[in-house]
Structure formats: C-alpha cells, structure tokens
C-alpha cells in the first residue's frame, strides 16, 4: 500500500498567488473575508461544486493555488452574481471566479472534460474574427473541439432552431470593419505583453 501525505506544508503554499488575485478588479477585500458562507448559501450551483465558493475564497487567500485552479468550481460558476450581492465585506465573488478562470486558462489548468473553457476560447476567437459572435459558429466550434458525440447530441436541437429561423445556416454576423476590433484587442495585448489563449 502506498501512502501519501494529505496535508500541505506552509512552505508549499503560494502566498504571492493570493496577492495577485486580490489585485484584480472587485477582489480588493479578499483578505477581509469572515468565512460566513453567505456566498455558498446564495449560490444555486454550489451543490455541484467540489469546493464551495466560501472554500475557494479561503483557499485562494491561503495560497492553495494548485487546488483552486484545478477545481471544478470555477468552471461551474454561471455568473449569476447572487454571491456578489450577498457578501457582507464586499468581495465581488463573481469577479474572483473570473480572475481564477483567467489564471487557469493562462497556466493550462482545468479538467479537459469541462466545456466551459472551450466555450470561452471559441467565443474569444469568433469575436476576434468578426467583431460579433455568431451563435452557430461559436457552438459548432465548441462541439467540434469537444468531440463528435457532443456534436451529434446537439444536432436535433440545432435543426429545430434552424427551421424556426433562429440559427442561420451559413451567414456570419460581422461588423463592417472587424479589423478595428482586432486592432483594439491587439493594442491591449501588446501592452500586456501578449496574452491571447
């Protein structure tokens, strides 16, 4: 039988991580969390999470970078802002979740099976190309990346939507000068030192 240490030594924690996350907009009061759990109680998805929002805040604050960034929680957050308006110390928990998602994408974390991440990337690319997100294009890309079984499972619904004129079959919504949006995004990326996924 192989046994493993199940606790983390303090030296293994990433304190810097906590400070970096606390610097993102909306997360300034991260260190003031009183662990009341109002966020977890308000969250309609917390019953599916491996770490509840309260634990995510606690663990982020203590520097459990690896655990937080590999959790399912950040990909389950549906951005409903229920936690954000309940937090008694004003932590915008939804924004913390966004900051964690950004870090996870940037550093290659995240379970492969969760499509949330693929959706964000498909969306990002579509907007960069066209300035707008044509739903069919985003969805097709998402499910193509996710695998054929996903594509097949979504096909009947896609067909129904197409029949009712809610999903254009070929056309792509594009602004007159998509280059303008690309310039906008690239300018910012330059300032950041290149950051697209």
């Amino acid at each position: 039988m192989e046994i493993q240490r199940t606790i983390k030594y303090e030296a293994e924690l990433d304190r810097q991580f906590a400070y970096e996350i606390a610097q993102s907009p909306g997360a300034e009061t991260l260190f003031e969390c009183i662990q009341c759990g109002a966020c977890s109680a308000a969250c309609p998805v917390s019953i599916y999470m491996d770490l509840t929002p309260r634990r995510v805040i606690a663990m982020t604050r203590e520097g459990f970078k690896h655990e937080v960034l590999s959790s399912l929680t950040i990909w389950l957050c549906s951005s409903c802002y229920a936690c954000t308006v309940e937090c008694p110390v004003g932590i915008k928990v939804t924004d913390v979740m966004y900051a964690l998602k950004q870090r996870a994408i940037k550093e290659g974390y995240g379970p492969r099976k969760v499509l949330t991440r693929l959706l964000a990337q498909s969306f990002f690319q579509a907007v960069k190309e066209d300035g707008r997100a044509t739903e069919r294009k985003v969805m097709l890309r998402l499910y193509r990346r996710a695998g054929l079984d996903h594509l097949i499972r979504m096909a009947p619904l896609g067909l129904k939507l197409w029949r009712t004129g809610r999903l254009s079959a070929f056309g792509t919504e594009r602004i007159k000068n998509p280059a303008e949006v690309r310039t906008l995004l690239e300018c910012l990326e330059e300032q950041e030192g290149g950051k697209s996924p």
Partner: protein
Amino acid sequence: MSGYAYYPGCSLLGTGKSYDESVRAVFEALGVPLQELENWNCCGATAYSSIDECTAFALAARNLALAHRRGDPILAPCPNCYLVLTKTQRYLEQYPEIRQRIVQTLERLGLNLGHDVPIRHPLQVLSETPGLEAIRQKIQKPLKGLRVAPYYGCLLARPYPIVEDPWNTTILEDFIRVTGAEVVPYAYRTRCCGGALTGVVREAGLRMVYILLREALRQGAQAVVTTCPLCQFNLEAFQDQALRKNGIQERIPVLYFTQLLGLALGLPPKKLGLHRHLIPFQPQRKALQEAVA
C-alpha cells in the same frame, strides 16, 4: 437625437430573434423611436471575462464610445449586454489605470469614450415613455384569464439593478397586468436559469431549468414571461429534456415580455416572432378549451 441607440447584441440576431422582432414592433406601436447603433460589436459577454477582463472592458467600451459619438442613450434588451456595458462603465470610473489604457486604445481608432452614456433596458424605458397608464389606453386585445409567471432572471436584479429596490420591485409584474393577464406568485423570479451551463455542464444546467419550470407549473402558470434571451432559450429549448427526466408531461410556453405586450396591443403574432418558438403559445385556443370543459 435620433431616438435610442438600439443595441441588440449577438443573441438577438440568432436564437433570440423573436426578442429583437418584438422589441422593434412594440416600440414602433408605442411611438418610442429607436435606431440600431451602427456597427456595434459584441459586448464581450461572460465568456470574454474568463479570458481577460481588460479586453472584455475594451470590447464594451467601443460600443459606449459609438453611442457617445451619436449622442443617444443605449437601449439594451439583453440583460447580459446590459450588465457588461454597465459594469464596464462603472469599473472604468472606479479604476483609472484601466480606464487610461482603454481610452488610449480607443483614441487610436479615433473614438472617444466619453462619460456616462445612459444604458437602459426596455422595461425601464417603456415604464417612463409612454408609461404604463398610456400603454393601458392602447390595449386592444386584453389577455384575460391567462396566468403568467414573471421571470426576471439574474442580471436585471443584480449587481446593477434596473430599479431602486430589486427585492420588492414589481416592474415586470406591472407590465404583465397591463396586458390583462394574471400574475402568479413566483418565488424564483430572480433565480439563475443556469446560463451557459446547459451547453457545457448539462447535468447542472438541466436541473436549474427544471427547478424554475416546476415552480411555474406548480403555481398554475400557463406561460413564463422572460426579459432575457438566454433564459428564454434555456427554459424553452431544454424544457423537454428537463421535464421528461423528472416525469412531467406538461409543457409551458416561454415568451418575452415584449411579445405578451405586443399581443395585447393587437400586433400580429408573426410580427412578434411567435412562430419561431418551439413550444407554441396559443392563448385563444386554451381559453376556448377551458370554456368548453
């Protein structure tokens, strides 16, 4: 001033097409001018914030700058667009460093961000111009006897509510009552529909859809009225799966509040995009059936 700078957003060009059609039809019928914001781009939505907050702000900011140049308030029927545009405006006021980066980038494109372009939702606009009383005068086909569950969804209620007191507001209920329909008590009116989860984490998404629909049915509603294209899509397109899984045979149509209003104003169903719905809404037939029974 050429009326509201109408910002449909990406969903209203696709799955939410009937929201676009019904907003335009109702505004026209009530004489409130709107004109699409020319060359608008995607607001960035929630997906974009997962990649990078700053570029998400930049996308929204370009639209704010376009509206500023035109000099009209933005009309955003999609609560997601409403949120992202409003949040961007607030955050750019709050974080001068981010604002500066965005302002500089926009300047390269010859755009000026400006300050405080008003961003409004149709519920707010119509409750002021022409106002509920004036709308009441124009009702031609009251939807008598129809029982409706009012569903706001998340983002009109929080974090930047369209009304002063989101806990006690009745703005959507008031619109439903104006059409002559009856409002059923609906405790989940601002509970999340699951957003993109139906597409990416199916199990969780279906459960959230089921909870909302079950409550509407339990209250005896004959239709759910929404203000959001994603809510409408989730509650309608995944309804069959969500309810079948839980052994419920009934189905319930999910409409936009502008469609309900349009019907009561006497506009033709086709102009309101009702033919695009997967679960047909036939109030006349239902009333007839009940009269016979």
